[in-house]
């Protein structure tokens, strides 16, 4: 097997949480607000269904091919040629998506904090760190997640806690003015975020306690749901209808913080802590890319690929999108892309694998 490390289900749940939430709390409130208005805090609850579907799909497929990732078992399910195409597609898919994630982060940082720093430096620094951690292996990556997880949690609690005096409870009314539909419409974007839980397919084969994967996976989904819903709720309580007019409501919220005229404008600190979450997300995606490529080409080791693919990742993030405007315009497409790649494709694979199994049984019987 390519990956020699072993991690526990608990650690898997732990790394998946910042993987989803880090960019989630940045953009999701705004894009959800466009559709759901004041009911936007309900949307993540609907959207979390995608998380559960993704986890169930990954685990169901893993049950049939316990020691393989999607890249490997797609070859067994679809045959050599088509399977390889799908495998390489998935690796490129994650490379591309990772490029977009990285660009989201870079646009945010360069647009708000480091106005004159070339975007290449911001992207390159992050890509380098992620490539380094992937090169060190899954175990190390998970360990960094364990160290940083409390910090990511702290970030949210800090922002929320410091904002408490500014919240306006009345802002939440009217509740479900147009029925349930807007909140479901608003769930479309978070849905794609939750579908990223399918990434556990790259971790499942290396778990030491696979029977607990479902438990910790679900807990992770629930926790992401609670946190996303909470950020949306607080955005509504703070800004009311205006939420969708901000690009980054949570960061704008942080600007409002003023305690005793001493703790003010903590958005730079929130950004700094949030960058840690992004680091974990990009590393997880990069790990999927690197492992995907290594398994597609049946290499002995995936580690040497990490740095070169990191370079490609920088390219991807610089080429794929030209500006923040384009990014927000393309977001529906990206979400669709994510859902197709992480829900639809595995679903097809699962159905085909069942058909295959039945046929084999018939032919043997």
């Amino acid at each position, binding site marked *: 097997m390519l990956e020699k490390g072993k991690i526990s289900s608990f*650690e898997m749940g732990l790394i998946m949480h910042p993987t989803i939430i880090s960019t989630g709390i940045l953009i999701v409130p705004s894009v959800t607000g466009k559709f759901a208005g004041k009911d936007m805090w309900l949307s993540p609850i609907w959207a979390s269904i995608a998380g559960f579907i993704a986890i169930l799909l990954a685990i169901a497929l893993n049950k049939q091919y316990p020691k393989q990732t999607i890249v490997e078992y797609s070859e067994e399910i679809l045959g050599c040629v088509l399977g390889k195409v799908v495998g390489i597609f998935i690796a490129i898919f994650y490379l591309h998506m990772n490029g977009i994630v990285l660009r989201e982060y870079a646009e945010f940082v360069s647009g708000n904090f*480091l106005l004159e720093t070339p975007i290449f430096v911001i992207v390159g*620094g*992050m890509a380098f760190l992620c490539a380094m951690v992937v090169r060190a292996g899954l175990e190390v990556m998970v360990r960094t997640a*364990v160290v*940083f997880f409390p910090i990511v949690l702290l970030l949210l609690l800090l922002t929320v806690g410091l904002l408490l005096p500014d919240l306006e409870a009345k802002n939440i009314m009217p509740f479900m003015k147009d029925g349930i539909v807007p909140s479901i419409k608003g769930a479309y974007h978070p849905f794609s975020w939750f579908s990223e839980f399918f990434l556990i397919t790259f971790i499942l084969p290396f778990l030491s306690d696979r029977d607990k994967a479902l438990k910790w996976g679900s807990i992770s989904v629930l926790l992401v749901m609670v946190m996303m819903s909470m950020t949306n709720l607080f955005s509504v309580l703070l800004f009311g209808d205006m939420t969708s007019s901000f690009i980054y409501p949570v960061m704008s919220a942080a600007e409002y913080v003023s305690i005793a005229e001493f703790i003010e404008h903590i958005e*730079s600190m929130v950004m700094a802590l949030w*960058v840690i979450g992004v680091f974990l997300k990009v590393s997880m995606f990069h790990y999927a890319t690197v492992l995907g490529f290594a398994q597609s080409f049946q290499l002995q080791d995936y580690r040497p690929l990490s740095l070169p693919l990191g370079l490609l990742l920088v390219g991807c993030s610089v080429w794929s999108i030209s500006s923040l405007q384009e990014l927000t315009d393309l977001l529906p497409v990206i979400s669709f892309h994510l859902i197709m790649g992480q829900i639809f494709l595995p679903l097809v694979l699962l159905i085909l694998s069942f058909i295959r199994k039945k046929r084999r049984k018939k032919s043997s019987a």
Partner: protein
Amino acid sequence: MPKPFKFLQQKKSLPPLLKEKDERPLSHSIEENEQTLQSIYAHCYDVVFRSFYIGGERKALLIYIEGLVDVSEMDDNMLSPLMEASALEFPEVVDLIEKKVSVGSVQEVNTFSDCISEVSSGNSLVLIDGTPKAISVGLTKWKSRSITESDAEVVVRGPREGFIEAIQVNTSMLRRRLRTPKLKLKTMEIGKYTKTQVILGYIEGIAQENLIKEVENRVQRIDVDGLIDSGELEEFIQDANYSPFPQVLSTERPDVVTANLLEGRVILIVDGSPFVLVMPVTFFSFLQIAEDYYARFMIGTLIRWLRYTFLFISLLLPSIYVALFTFHQEMIPTDLLISVASAREQTPFPALVEALLMEVTFEALREAGLRLPKQVGAAVSIVGALVIGEAAVQAGIVSSPMVIVVALTGIASFTIPRYPVSISIRVLRFPMIFLAGTLGLLGVIFGIIAIVIHLCTIRSFGVPYLSPLAPLHGDELKDVLIRAPWWTLNKRPRLTGERNTFRQSLHQQQSPEKRG
């Protein structure tokens, strides 16, 4: 070994020249033996050759090194009984020695190389005519420093003993604290010329077999011509060579070593070095000191938190200062910003340069203060306090807030109890300042992420460096995040004490017995 440093490695492996031995056996004729040994010890004025006759008949030769042997005891208990004995009475040499020499440690030696090593280690050697054997008599005695309190690890409450350079004294201190035959002390020898004694210590039944074997293997494979201090040995056996962080704990305190032995760790004592090596260790071992465990647990916990806080201050304060004043002025409260800005108005340097300038100066001051002869030490403190502080600010070269930041950082780095980690943090501070000066808080976070990745990567003899935090063992965090009371510390650390999990019975908190 990472690729950039490959060139540092020897291309071809040298043949193990350094371990060659003179395995020639001793001859029957004492003249021949004397000649050979004389030629080996030519131009060594301190090696004494003394011929005498056992009982006035049989020729014998005594060899010892002056200054390493207790001469008066040698005269009383060996030379005079032997000279007075009659050789005819005891035809067998061993017999003679057994019955006449009243010294505790006596050993038979057969080859020249063994003869040399016995003489070198301070024993006196007796050769007797007609036998191809020599007798080594342990009458070693030399001057050593008396036991004093360790200078590097000071405690307010706790034992005051510290290790010294003489290995026998050190092992005796350990034996006195661990009165069990399960305390094993294996001896090894390193160095072609120094023949330094290295002792591997562990407690049988607690330390894991594979750990003991691994440490022993690593030490035994070392092939050098000299080993001066345990610091050298540490570099030979550590896991990650290209890391600023120490992976072996060195301590001068016997109580610390005892506690570590009881947690299943392995120690290495090097003759001539008062620092005993303890392995495997985690990052947190360097932030805990003996006194945490002797003080009341609440105090111990609070002091630990203080130490953790100042660890971060020591690493990050200058870089955060630079980041805030270069990139994120809006985060600073207005009043503070105004006062700092007015103080900085006159300084010609950007914050980054100012910080680097001051930090480097401070490090230089500290180094100078450490190495100076005591008589001129006062000069440094005067120069440091006046020139770097007051005068520099008044001349407008640096701003006073910067001086405060540097001073705070300096104090913070002194709160890190173990010197090797304190140095690592000092070193890492400089790249952090650079990152802060170029990328602001983002750069600081980049630096932190890089350090955490590195810390997660390294292992010390198989134990992950950040355990029990990462990989997480929730149960053990009670001895890391806080200092839990003794009666809850029932288990040994999992990664070293797995073999013998419990160190005490449960429910050890003693309260008055409940009556009926």
